[in-house]
């Protein structure tokens, strides 16, 4: 029992939340606030020192905070119940994209609602783990073969639809968010090993039948960016140059030559970590990672202390998905992974991602502020 001691402590400490009438988790909010502030700070420098993007991003963030607080007011049971509806809506929206979506840069990812445009794959990022969590929590843990198959099906349909847009990056992330639920639900080791080998076997199939030429190009570029210095390799060469030239402490805020002189592409969106690394150096990167780990760690504690199987799975999946965004983004910008369009969570400019993230954190906050009913292993 000794090894659960720290959980017990946390539970004791979190006991105050029983009396939380507004469903607010101050710690979570503070960490998010710190991350958002960091994001705006870097964004100002990354967007040629203009307030245009900063203002818009700040607006999205404020809306995000508001949305998060609203979402947190709904009981966890509510989210569990509407999971099916939510999931169905997401599927419909994804189908609609394929039928009437707006095409941009060779991909169809957006739906035009008349007053605004939105990306249904963003809903899927929430809807898929929500649905898988709801599905698996109704059954015995660890899931049987039947339920594993069922869960995989739930994940595979939207992932396939997103793949058709085509958006390999989001498709993989959506798949991952669902898979995390399975993993947290205790997916048997043999399935884990099996899925590992399936993934290995699927890689060549993906390469041959699924991946488009530009996607293959990105993988090839990762392996040898110098082959096409001014073409496909440009982004990755410029981003590693930005990161590397930042050194330990960086060139100083708004002093990064790679970003300020526009050598770095997409500096305010997907590649913003390179701006941070260039201007604040390794220390800046460490600082950001610390914030992220703090957030992920805190979310995992929320998950552990969650009051139902559904809440646990959902909270765990959200934290892991969040981490995976950060991991994929930081890896692709530094040349560890091929460039897939994954923004750096809470730092990269982009309204859709902010809204989705805060929606997720809203659910987390709902989970964390739930009155504790079931006991722990005391």
């Amino acid at each position, binding site marked *: 029992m000794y090894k*659960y001691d720290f*959980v017990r402590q946390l539970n004791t400490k979190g006991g105050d939340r029983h009396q939380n009438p507004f469903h607010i988790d101050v710690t979570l909010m503070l960490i998010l606030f710190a991350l958002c502030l960091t994001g705006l700070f870097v964004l100002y420098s990354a967007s040629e020192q203009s307030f245009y993007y900063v203002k818009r991003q700040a607006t999205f963030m404020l809306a995000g905070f508001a949305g998060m607080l609203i979402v947190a007011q709904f009981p966890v049971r509510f989210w569990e119940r509407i999971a099916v509806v939510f999931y169905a809506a997401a599927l419909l929206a994804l189908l609609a994209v394929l039928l009437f979506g707006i095409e941009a840069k060779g991909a169809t990812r957006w739906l035009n609602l008349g007053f605004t445009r939105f990306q249904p794959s963003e809903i899927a990022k929430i809807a898929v783990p929500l649905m898988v969590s709801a599905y698996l929590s109704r059954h*015995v*843990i*660890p899931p*049987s073969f039947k339920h594993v198959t069922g869960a995989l099906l739930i994940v595979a349909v939207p992932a396939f639809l997103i793949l058709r847009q085509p958006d390999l990056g989001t498709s993989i992330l959506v798949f991952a968010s669902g898979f*995390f639920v399975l*993993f*947290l*639900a*205790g997916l*048997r080791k043999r399935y884990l090993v099996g899925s590992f080998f399936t993934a290995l076997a699927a890689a060549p199939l993906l390469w041959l039948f699924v991946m488009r030429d530009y996607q293959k190009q990105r993988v090839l570029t990762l392996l040898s960016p110098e082959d096409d210095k*001014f073409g496909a390799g440009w982004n990755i*060469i*410029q981003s*590693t*140059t*930005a*990161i*590397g*030239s*930042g*050194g*330990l402490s960086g060139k100083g805020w708004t002093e990064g*030559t*790679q970003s300020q*002189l*526009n*050598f770095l592409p997409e500096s305010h969106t997907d590649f913003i970590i390179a701006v941070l*690394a260039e201007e604040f*150096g*390794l220390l800046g*990167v*460490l600082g950001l*990672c610390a914030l992220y*780990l703090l957030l*992920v*760690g805190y979310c*995992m504690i929320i*998950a*552990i202390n969650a009051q139902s*199987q559904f809440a*646990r*799975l959902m909270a*765990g999946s959200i934290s*892991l998905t969040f*981490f995976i965004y950060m*991991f994929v983004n*930081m*890896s692709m910008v*530094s*040349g*560890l992974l091929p460039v897939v369009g994954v923004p750096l969570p809470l730092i990269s400019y982009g309204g859709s991602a902010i809204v989705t993230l805060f929606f997720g954190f809203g659910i987390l906050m709902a989970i964390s502020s739930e009155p504790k009913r*079931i006991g*722990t*292993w005391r």
Partner: protein
Amino acid sequence: MLQDNAISDPRKEQKIFYLRVMTSVLIVLGLTSVILFRYFDLQINRHLDYVTNSNKNRIHIRSVAPTRGLIYDRRGELVADNRPSFTLNVIPESASNIDQLLGRIGDLISLSERDIERFMKRVKRNKRFQSIPLKYNITEQERAILAVNSHILAGTEVSAQLMRHYPEGALLAHSLGYVGRINDREIKKIDPEQYRGTDFIGKIGLEKFYENILLGQVGTEQVETDARGRLMRILDKTDPVPGSNLTIYMDTELQRIAVEALKGERGALVAMDVKTGGILSMVSNPSYDPNLFTSGISQKQYDGLLNSPDRPLFNRALRGQYPPGSTVKPLFGLIGLQHEIYDMDYSIYDPGYFFMEGIKRPWRDHNSDQGGHGYGVDLAEAIIESCDVFFYTTGVKTGIDLLSKESALFGLGDITGIDLPGEKRGIMPDRAWKKDKRRQEWFNGDTINMSIGQGFMLTTPLQLAVMSARIATRGEQIIPKLVKSIDGTPVEPEFAGEKISYDKKYWDYVHQAMVDVVHSKKGTARSISKGITYKLAGKTGTAQVISINEKEKYDSSKIDKSKWDHALFVAFAPAENPQIALGLIVENGEHGSRTAAPIARKVIDSYLMGFQQDSKSSATAKLAGGFSNPAESN
């Protein structure tokens, strides 16, 4: 332990979940370490490499082309100038569709296939966001058209740079030469540092010979640019040093008169200042417009020049090798006298033919049909009337060895050392030469042919002028020069060796004979003495283009003009105090006396009168009398 179990056990579920979360934490920490290790590697281990890369990105050394040195003639007239010229450039990365853009430009202004081809070649090897020249030398009108349509021409820009211009065009082309775009062959030879920022290099003529002096020192600017190549700021700067200005001895006006005097005949003329060796005029007719080459001559135009039967690109003055004919007689006579092969009283009988012992075929005198020059032909008469038989006779006596060795002192058979590239040596044959080239012994017959400037002997018009100058100065081995001063610093005259120490009486004798060629009643060039106010020493020459055997008679009406004899003339004046020496040839001009000599008279007249005008103080009388050195009187 974790068996399939239909009964839900919250505690067990929690435990499974807890273990999985812990596994996740380990994975999260592991993956984070991977990332951090990567960033550590980039930012700490390889930091300096990336700093270098990052600086390479933004900091560029831009070359600032130096202004090419100007060239002035002796009167200070600008003969090689730099003029602003406009180039249409395209930045391929800034154009949305390069083919479409080229099509649009082609609709507005004329673009040649060659422009496009050259442009496309450079697109492949240039850096991103660099402007690449599409069309050089666009006109004022084209600039206006492009400016008006600039809204549909994104990615284009018009830049100004200095372009070489030769205000006198064809007049001085063979001396000045021209600059042109650096070609692949030249790129290998030049120091690329020095030529950053310029596309041009001297191709021929003075422009080539003085390339290093005219070029100047390239300047650099260390600039910071953004990814689109836009200049952000200048970090450091070294100004270029302009090339040195040259002043040449040539007189544009005199050159014009010489060209006019040649009246469109193919030929060449070189006039030298005998004191300094300065080239006063150098004509090779016909000529070409060097400005065609600076802006990139079209293949059609170039083929036209190259294939013209008149060979305008060929510098006859420097590279044309002709038999000197009788123009070498004064020199050969002088050599004979000095080496006491014969004396000034020595004379011969000229029956119109010369027979060599043991050889049946006679050598014919040019006036053999009039019975030759008769009795008592001495050296002076042989020069004045251009008697061949005298020189056949004395030539054999003097011998090839002496003639060849001494002629070399007068600049024959080797390059003169003028400051122009591509000079030809001509041929001053000797025994060794014949053995080497013809694999034969030297025969007396060869000497006889050579003694009247025929046979194997070949000279360039420049060599003829140098020979006259060295005779005129009584043996100063002056080297011809085009450049008078570099950036105002005079270029010292150069000599090929010590003054040739021939006896004064022989110089006097030969000078007088050459004066009499023009001024005496029997002189072959007496026709040009009319109205002359100074003493002009000269010698006519006729060089055979085809050999006529002894039974035939040369009749120009029966043969094609391209096979007519070449007319030659060498001269210096004023005889008492020579200022100017000259050598000239009119291809297929038939007779030196009729065609070539009048041209020499016009040029020398003009120079001496012009000189008198320049010095202002001197009266006409002074022309006939002693001339002072122009350098002193100016």
